[in-house]
């Protein structure tokens, strides 16, 4: 069944979009990631103009994050105070990112910027995750090696403007969370992602937050930052396609529930290795497109 998307102005198969939403939903359910980093490139492959893909996936992430954060609120695993500090940084970063996005769009380089961001970040995260989970797997087999002790005092603890974050059990400066927020906000605006895949490791390793509040807090921040991004894209570029977002959503919601069930049956290390490989495959595909000589050197500019 073909469906005409009013903003993207292309006709695509609705089942392909549902399947795409479903696939990303399954992955997000299995691995607990938002899936924005997968949905945006997949939308490029289906033929959605990049500007619309980035803006619409921001809208779709709002829905999946709302769905996820509610469960965390019930379990009281959201650090609202830390979330708000990250959010302030996120909004600043998002505004900066949007400026960069629009500037490069005017220069006809937005595809390059988006693809480069994807290749770099997916490459780094994928490689780190793979190494880390392979090491964890080896450790689990050998039953040797000591549990990692979190460093109590790093440079993070010597900065001014300290604040108490009770839910996280931290007393640290607000500067690192604001910087993390700005970085993630910028990436969100440029790549059309929530940025959880960067924020979560940053919260654990840089801020030293306990793992149990990390996911809920990052989802809380992501809801507001991606909402802000959606508004900016809708207001300045008119590129949010509500119909596309809704179809992806339906697929995503069902997929997430299936994914959660699959996730329960697999071991954590196996899951992480699979996710790492998946991230690396997407990275490789996008990277090759930049490196291999395209069959058509010319393209017609959109919008």
């Amino acid at each position, binding site marked *: 069944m073909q469906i005409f998307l*009013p903003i993207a102005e292309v006709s695509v198969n609705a089942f392909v979009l549902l399947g795409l939403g479903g696939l990303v939903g399954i992955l997000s359910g299995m691995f607990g990631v938002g899936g924005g980093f997968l949905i945006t490139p997949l939308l490029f492959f289906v033929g959605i103009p990049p500007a619309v893909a980035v803006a619409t996936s921001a*809208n779709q992430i709002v829905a999946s994050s709302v769905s996820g954060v509610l469960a965390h609120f019930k379990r009281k695993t959201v650090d609202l105070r830390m979330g708000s500090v990250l959010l302030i940084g996120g909004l600043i970063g998002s505004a900066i990112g949007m400026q960069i996005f629009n500037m490069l769009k005017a220069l006809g380089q937005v595809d390059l910027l988006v693809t480069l961001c994807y290749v770099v970040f997916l490459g780094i995260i994928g490689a780190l995750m793979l190494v880390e989970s392979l090491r964890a797997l080896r450790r689990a087999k050998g039953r040797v090696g000591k549990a990692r002790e979190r460093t109590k005092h790093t440079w993070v603890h010597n900065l001014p403007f300290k604040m108490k974050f009770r839910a996280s059990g931290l007393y640290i400066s607000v500067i690192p969370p604001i910087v993390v927020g700005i970085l993630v906000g910028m990436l969100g605006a440029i790549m059309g992602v929530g940025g959880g895949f960067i924020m979560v490791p940053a919260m654990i390793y840089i801020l030293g937050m306990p793992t149990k509040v990390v996911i809920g807090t990052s989802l809380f921040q992501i809801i507001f930052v991606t909402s802000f991004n959606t508004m900016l894209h809708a207001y300045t570029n008119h590129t949010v396609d509500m119909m596309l977002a809704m179809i992806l959503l339906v697929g995503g919601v069902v997929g997430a529930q299936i994914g959660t069930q699959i996730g329960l049956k697999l071991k954590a290390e196996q899951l992480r290795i699979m996710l790492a490989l998946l991230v690396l495959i997407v990275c490789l595909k996008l990277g090759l497109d930049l490196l291999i000589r395209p069959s058509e050197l010319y393209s017609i500019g959109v919008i």
Partner: protein
Amino acid sequence: MRFLIVILALWVAPLSLAAEQVVAALSQNRISITANFDGSEILVFGAIKRTEAVPENSALDVIVTVTGPRKLETILRKARRFGIWVNVETERLGHAPSFYSVAATRPVEDIVASKTDSLWKITADAQILSARRGLAAREALLRIRTDNGLYRRANAGVVLTENTLFNTSIALPANLVEGDYITRILLVRDGAVLDDYSTAINVQKVGIERWLYNLAHNNALLYGLLSLVLAALAGWGASEAFRILRR
């Protein structure tokens, strides 16, 4: 003033005196882009009206062209920089049609001489920015649109019966740009255009497509808020629904 009248007379005279004229109609003059729009097929049919007998031993041909709305185009060229392929050059090209289709009784090259082709702008090559022929970006535009099926030709697409009745069907793709699609019918005898007729097909989004598009462009703030509210509701609804299901 007298000069003008003379010109007008010269211009009108051949039309009114033409021995053969086209009478044509389309199966539809309006195409509505609905949510499940999947392209459309337009039937063009008509007859040749004569005041004299059919001339013997001479070739009669009919050419039907459809031109989509024109727009300023930006053509980007990629080149290798620092090991990766990036857009290095942009070329702005004057108003090229978003869609162009030619159907005729025979290949256009066999029907008319290239001079007539450029005068009447019949083939895509003559129609699309012919003044900038030879420019790489213009050739690329022509090539890309042809490969994407937006510039098409049907060499034996028009059926002419008994030198009097003709018909053809023109397939319009699913990714249509809104606007007027000018349909032109040319009557050609022995390589000379005797008569032409043109009419417009109006392509427009309707229903929810129209509503969403207008809201997104005219009231962007409200549109953004609405998409957020819908997303939040969908997220909340999904988590509630599955909580109930699991119990």
